């Protein structure tokens, strides 16, 4: 499978009064052509910063991309000039944000905002831009697009605004759509519609990929082909969608899956929880980032950061419990339970 985007050793730090926050601290990630990749994590895990880094939207200062490369079609996005990256945005890679209420400009009509993208990137007549705007709004399911073009964002409901955002993002047929929590602010029925719409739009564009950033594992299960789990600025596990939900490796992933109550099947009496809370980004542990909350932590965990290794084909994990695949990090002590038990998800 051809890789569309390859992130290598990306480090994005924020220099704040209370010290350096290593929001993204060395991540490697590939997005293949035509796939939907989920990037999952809790607040502060670095998932949004990763997305913003790809499009160079990190406010600098206080943020700064310290190291790494982001290869897109053989070009390193981090080395491009402002004009060049501007050309990439919208044309090749575009983004949908969480807040459909604030990401549209309230003083311009919807039509102007859709046409702006077309005219900023391509030399087309106003009539042509208008025609294409109507076309894309129809495609994302806005009824009476001609009329709605003349209206302002406050005339649109949350779900419709998110449809407009998707229209703006996709009007130039980019090959990668980055969606950062696109449905978090929406009701469940609307959420389902928007997720369906995104997948539908992707299907119609051969080879297009989606990077879906979310904290919601159910949304991931609904839409993604592959998932990367982030914690403490690092990728902790990457797996195919079925593997991640049926046989996850990392104790953090186990914890996350245990934390979600289910809509179907047997009702658990109690949820299994991950104890404690996400560590302060300014004072992350030296070794494994999850060590402070991990029920399986043993000797090397606090001091030595485990490498991200391919423990099974296509299944990567960053944990001392899994020394197969790559170089064994450390010998496994007998007193530690070998690995988390496979999840009982047959109920």
């Amino acid at each position: 499978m051809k890789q569309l985007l390859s992130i290598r050793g990306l480090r994005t730090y924020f220099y704040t009064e209370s010290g350096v926050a290593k929001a993204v601290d060395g991540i490697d990630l590939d997005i293949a052509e035509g796939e939907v990749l989920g990037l999952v994590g809790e607040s502060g895990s670095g998932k949004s910063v990763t997305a913003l880094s790809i499009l160079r939207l990190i406010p600098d200062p206080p943020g700064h991309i310290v190291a790494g490369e982001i290869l897109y079609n053989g070009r390193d996005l981090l080395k491009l000039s402002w004009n060049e990256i501007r050309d990439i945005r919208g044309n090749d890679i575009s983004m949908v944000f969480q807040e459909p209420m604030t990401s549209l400009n309230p003083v311009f009509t919807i039509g102007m905002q859709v046409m702006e993208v077309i005219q900023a990137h391509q030399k087309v007549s106003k009539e042509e831009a208008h025609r294409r705007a109507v076309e894309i709004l129809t495609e994302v399911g806005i009824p009476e697009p001609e009329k709605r073009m003349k209206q302002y964002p406050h005339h649109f409901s949350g779900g419709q605004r998110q449809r407009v955002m998707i229209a703006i993002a996709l009007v130039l047929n980019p090959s990668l759509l980055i969606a950062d929590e696109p449905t978090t602010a929406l009701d469940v029925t609307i959420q389902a519609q928007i997720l369906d719409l995104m997948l539908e739009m992707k299907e119609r564009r051969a080879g297009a990929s989606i990077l879906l950033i979310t904290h919601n594992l159910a949304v991931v299960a609904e839409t993604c082909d592959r998932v990367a789990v982030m914690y403490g600025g690092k990728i902790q596990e990457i797996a195919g969608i079925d593997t991640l939900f049926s046989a996850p490796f990392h104790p953090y992933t186990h914890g996350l899956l245990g934390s979600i109550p289910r809509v179907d099947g047997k009702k658990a009496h109690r949820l299994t929880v991950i104890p404690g809370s996400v560590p302060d980004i300014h004072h992350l542990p030296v070794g494994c980032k999850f060590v402070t909350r991990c029920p399986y932590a043993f000797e090397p965990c606090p001091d030595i950061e485990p490498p991200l290794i391919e423990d099974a084909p296509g299944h990567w994990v960053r944990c001392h419990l899994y020394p197969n695949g790559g170089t064994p990090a450390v010998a496994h002590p007998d007193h530690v339970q070998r690995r988390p038990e496979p999840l009982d998800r047959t109920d």
Partner: protein
Amino acid sequence: MSAEILLDVQNLVVKFPVFGGILLRRVSEVEAVKGISFQLHRGETLGLVGESGCGKTTVGRAIINILRAMSYRVEISGRILYHHASGVVDLLPLTRKQMRPYRVDIQMVFQDPYSSLNPRKTVDQIVGEPLRIHTKMSRGERADRVRWLLEKVGLSARHMNRYPHEFSGGQRQRIGIARALATNPKIVIADEPVSALDVSIQAQVINLMQDLQEEFGLSYLFIAHDLSVVRHISNRIAVMSWGNIVELGPAEEIYQHPQHPYSKTLLAAAPRPDPAFNRRRRSS
């Protein structure tokens, strides 16, 4: 489950007037709650689900009788019968002052752990405030009780003199719960208590709420939009849509065999952490 009724809401209607024109006359109204009835039993959790704008939050606010303070000329009718130790009282027509003795029994946990705690007060003051208002406890007694409450919700006495900004979202929600429990209430109305929290923290707070319910025999009116969370915590569920309860029944019944078309739609739309199920659904 005993079916002892604690709260009996009968035909509750809430209308918010809409003012318009230069003179700001009442031009129309929004009927947020259109005559709903339900009962809350002792020791149970009744889940109230629905999408935004369905009126679920308004129901909670009507019960603790703060709608009149929040909205000018709101029109409320119906009855909210509270069955307390020595009789039955309709909470709806009560004035602020008359309501006070019942406030002790009915407390609320809010959605946003950031805006629901006064940033200028310490945890000690926040959790102790209901005690200061509703009891004649001395300062020392109050401090003891606050300490005890904090430990109950998984915090400790050393947190007493800190301010809300020093805590994470999950810890703040614990503070909010401690405050709600301060007066030893019978009913806790929890309006989206976990939706602002991270997944792993949500599970902690849900477990905490269940533990406290068992220990103190609390009844919860659990208002939320997340169907999986509601199913997990509730004994019975009421599904709301456009100001009406369209279906009310035992949690499992509603999830296994939803009757009303709206409940069916809502359940079908809820994403599930099960890739195989989603593929089946998509291909069908």
